[in-house]
């Protein structure tokens, strides 16, 4: 098992803020809109240095999506910022009609996704957003794993023509991917080559998969770990190549089982290469208030849950 040393833990939302600020300097067409969560989304630096390109929309997310769609007419590249819950479910029809169906170049940037939002509880802990967004034709869906990757993804999506959903989170997590990485939309990242099982993880669960890989190595299991930062378009080639090698698959994500990464990979395998699959995800449940770590343990979204899933799926391997 490869080692993934890191020197700092940082929040992925700060990676977004840093990436957005960078874009402010390099791309004059980038504009930012925020629905009264500038501090939470780490958009302060952009707001301070590019005030003429920052738009405070207030607590009016539906309007924000429409305004963003309108700003693309005239060549702007709007980045909207609010919590993942208010970036998707609250404004699904606005995104569907004014952005996705209208082919608008809007970047929907969504923080505080999933259980790791923590104490605010289930009203704010959306676990359905990846599913909603990936169902929209033409929508690109990205869920990076750490600060560096979120920053790189933020910068990369400005050059992608078309609507994008970029999902990130609130807590600090190990920042272990290279600062100078080249983020390629739709290209899975191999973290550890292995032969016994394929672990496909996204977002905060990527680091948990790395921790699980170490525990598995101690048990003599050589896990292949792949970071699926782009849920759509899915890197079918990389997923199938790995699955065909290891003959069993575990998926891991901070999302509902229905509609998430595991669901996409299950569809792919069922069509192309039926193989045993276990999903580490929330099983048809809302979240609740607690610390992020307590919730990730209770809802079985940690390294222990991944190890258990690997052991279960390997028993089913033929």
């Amino acid at each position, binding site marked *: 098992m490869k080692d993934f040393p890191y020197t700092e833990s940082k929040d992925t939302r700060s990676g977004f803020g840093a990436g957005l600020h960078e874009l402010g300097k390099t791309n004059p067409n980038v504009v930012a809109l925020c629905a009264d969560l500038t501090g939470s989304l780490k958009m302060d630096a952009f707001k301070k240095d590019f005030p003429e390109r920052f738009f405070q929309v207030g607590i009016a997310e*539906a309007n924000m999506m*429409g305004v*963003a*769609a309108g700003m693309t007419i005239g060549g702007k590249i709007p980045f909207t910022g609010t919590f993942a819950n208010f970036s998707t479910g609250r404004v699904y029809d606005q995104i569907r009609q004014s952005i996705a169906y209208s*082919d608008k170049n809007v970047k929907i940037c969504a923080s505080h996704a999933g259980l790791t939002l923590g104490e605010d509880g289930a009203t704010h802990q959306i676990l359905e957003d990846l599913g909603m967004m990936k169902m929209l034709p033409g929508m690109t869906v990205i869920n990076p794993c750490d600060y560096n990757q979120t920053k790189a993804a933020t910068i990369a999506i400005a050059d992608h023509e078309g609507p994008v959903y970029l999902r990130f989170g609130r807590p600090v997590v190990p920042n272990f991917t290279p600062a100078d990485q080249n983020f390629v939309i739709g290209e899975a990242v191999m973290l550890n080559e292995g032969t016994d099982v394929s672990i496909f993880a996204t977002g905060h669960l990527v680091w948990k998969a790395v921790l699980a890989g170490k525990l598995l190595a101690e048990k003599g299991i050589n896990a292949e770990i792949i970071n699926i930062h782009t849920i759509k378009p899915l890197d079918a080639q990389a997923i199938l190549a790995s699955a065909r090698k290891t003959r069993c698959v575990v998926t891991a994500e901070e999302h509902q089982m229905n509609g998430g990464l595991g669901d996409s990979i299950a569809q792919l395998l069922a069509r192309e290469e039926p193989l045993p699959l276990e999903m580490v995800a929330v099983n048809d449940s809302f979240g609740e208030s607690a610390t992020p770590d307590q919730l990730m343990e209770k809802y079985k979204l940690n390294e222990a849950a991944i190890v258990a899933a690997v052991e279960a799926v390997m028993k089913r391997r033929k």
Partner: protein
Amino acid sequence: MPQTAEIATADLKEIAAQVRRDIVRMVHAVNSGHPGGSLGCTDLLVALYFKVMKHNPEQFSMDGIGEDLFFLSNGHISATLYSVLARSGYFPVSELATFRKLNSRLQGHPTTHEGLPGIRVASGSLGQGLSVACGAAQAKKMNGDDRRVFVLMGDGELQEGQNWEALLYAAHHKIDNLIAIIDHNGQQIDGPTAQIGGLGDLRAKFEAFDWHVLQADGNNYDTLLPALEEAQAASGQGKPVMFIMDTRMGFGVDFMMEGHKWHGVAPNDVQLATALQQLAVGTEADY
């Protein structure tokens, strides 16, 4: 860039009659669509596309830099927009015959998705157009483009909450290159707006939201054209402009002007013949 500002009112009336004939024929051909609101808004769209707006039908560009932009929020009156776009040169008039049919660019509600020139955003799900128009107007300001953005909304559509978010937003951000127009016909699918979800004193509401408000009859060029002049004169003064346009649903076809019945019903063969007879102003060929 064709901007036929000198066009005579008599010519506008002829074009409007032509557009109304297109509308009733289009909805009749597929036995579906929304003739009532379409007929009521015809005079406005003809005035905008043939007299008021600076635009470029021959070379449609999505960004519309240097052009006035029009957004249709109440997308169900698509037949009017399609007819006016075709007759002002965005696409062949013959294409009107494909309205609402398989593989058409003229979808039931307008969309960019099929690449129809003249359409800049999809609409149909109500309440979204004003927000889009706000964004487009702000993009114009950022681009140093001094042209304006027009958006038409239904009055029943004001029951959608997003409009009120956008009304606040436009005033707060002083989007004064935006002219919003309400098709104030007092009707919606289920009945008179006053009975479904009363709008009350719209002028007072919009003024309280810090918009510049004007009101006029939208089915009479003697009142409509001065109102559009006034709306343009009022823009650029720090406030968004709201034109409450009083119209009659079904205007131009007498039996379609009674109540809300013709909101979403197509005429049969006999009704089509009667309507065309009433609309037989002018000499231009039908599509």
